[in-house]
């Protein structure tokens, strides 16, 4: 692994973001709108239902966590799509970069993109709604880490599809998170789902993460098993995504997608 090359690819996206005010605005705008909206919804539920009245910030905290996951995943896909849209894809793949270096650089860049968007939004929640996500304590770090790994995993899976099938896979890139959201039990307990959906939900790390966030905020207890299960499933999906990416890269070399990408 070459840190110089990883840094080089990071710079390509760093320059892109910092050169354009609309791009920075775009990164900050949606999380802020999303969190403001869920802040008011959260306040409404907290005053009108018994389930949430012990923990005013449950919905808003889950909204912030979900937005972080969404931004990480979409951010990773965007980095890959930028190369296709700018017709730079071939230049990138004829540079002496190992697949691991490309992925590492995109993983770091996706994190920075997500944080640029999310940090201002999180800072807004305290003065606007009197809620601090830091109420999750040290476990906030593990929940964020788990979501980050899953977001990256989804990004790698979608990028594998882009490599294998080309730009026509772009629409799938935008819709992945929406497909998984109902099974993630982001805003409701898993018992809300029909039995079949619950079985699907239990093989995703999301349900453990959001169940645990609610558990900490509502019951003021910590169930380590939830965090443990989230990491186990994350590890499974992450390894599968890396294998699939390498498989797609080789398939693209057989099919010729790499040389025709962007046309």
């Amino acid at each position, binding site marked *: 692994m070459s840190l*110089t090359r990883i840094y080089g690819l990071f710079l390509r996206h760093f320059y892109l973001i910092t050169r354009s005010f609309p791009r920075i605005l775009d990164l900050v705008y949606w999380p802020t709108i999303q969190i403001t909206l869920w802040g008011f919804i959260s306040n409404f539920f907290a005053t009108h239902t018994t389930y949430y009245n012990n923990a005013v910030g449950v919905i808003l905290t889950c909204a912030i966590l979900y937005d972080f996951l969404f931004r990480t995943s979409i951010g990773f896909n965007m980095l890959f799509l930028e190369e296709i849209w700018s017709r730079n894809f071939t230049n990138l793949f004829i540079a*002496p970069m190992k697949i691991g270096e490309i992925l590492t650089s995109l993983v770091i860049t996706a994190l920075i993109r997500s944080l640029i968007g999310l940090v201002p939004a999180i800072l807004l929640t305290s003065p606007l709604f009197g809620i601090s996500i830091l109420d999750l304590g040290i476990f906030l770090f593990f929940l964020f880490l788990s979501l980050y790994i899953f977001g990256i995993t989804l990004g790698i899976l979608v990028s594998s599809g882009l490599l294998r099938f080309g730009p026509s896979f772009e629409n799938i890139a935008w819709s992945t998170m929406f497909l998984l959201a109902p099974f993630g039990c982001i805003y409701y307990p898993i018992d809300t789902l029909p039995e079949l959906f619950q079985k699907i939900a239990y093989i995703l790390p999301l349900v453990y993460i959001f169940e645990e966030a609610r558990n900490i905020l509502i019951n003021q207890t910590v169930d380590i098993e939830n965090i443990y299960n989230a990491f186990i499933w994350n590890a499974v999906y992450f390894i599968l995504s890396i294998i699939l990416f390498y498989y797609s890269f080789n398939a693209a070399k057989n099919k010729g997608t*790499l*040389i025709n990408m962007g046309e």
Partner: protein
Amino acid sequence: MKSLIEVRDIKKNYGKKEAVKGISFKIEENEILGLLGPNGSGKTTTIGMLLGLLKPTSGEIFINNLKLEDNRIEILEIINFISPYIELPKKLTVKQNLYVYSKLYKVQNIKERIEYLSDKLRIGELLNSITGELSSGQKNRVSLAKALINEPRVLLLDEPTASLDPEVGDFIRTFLEEYKREKKISILLASHNMSEVTRLCKSVLMMKNGEIIDQGKPDDLIAKHGRTNLEEVFLKLSRSKNEFN
């Protein structure tokens, strides 16, 4: 003379379609080899295989005595490519793009390298311009600077002067001649511009339907086919039914 590129009987099939049907050739150090052929003859597929973007169905490619299949990264460090069909990130300045690619190719003395190429390719005044806002002639010179950023020993050129006005086209050809002479690099030039090929190439390969149908020095081919220039030879071969093997 040392061969920098050696292609041994490579084939590329897409399903049942045979895009390249077992071609072999060598490019020596300090040589420009022309790759000619009508659209769909297999030129781009051949270049894609040399760049490691496409996996040959069979056959072997050696670059600088290294087998491409087993030494992809080492080979990509000494090779580069320019084509009008690929571009540099449009929103970055020229200098940012050259800096990014310097990092990707782990170039030492980046500042000096960019200054050298800026001077040689007359892009010094463009360094702070947005790449996407350049004219096609300017973009072409910037892309060439990117393609030379790693001081490649092998340069693959796909239509390097397509859509350029005659003045810029001549500047690029003169530059390539001088650069090759100075650095002793090997160049594979795919082009539809026959006067360009005649001027630059020591020898040419004529491809059609995935096969090499003729090869030799431009003057020898012109004499062999009883024509007055390479364009006439090209037309004769592309309209024929492969009887020239």
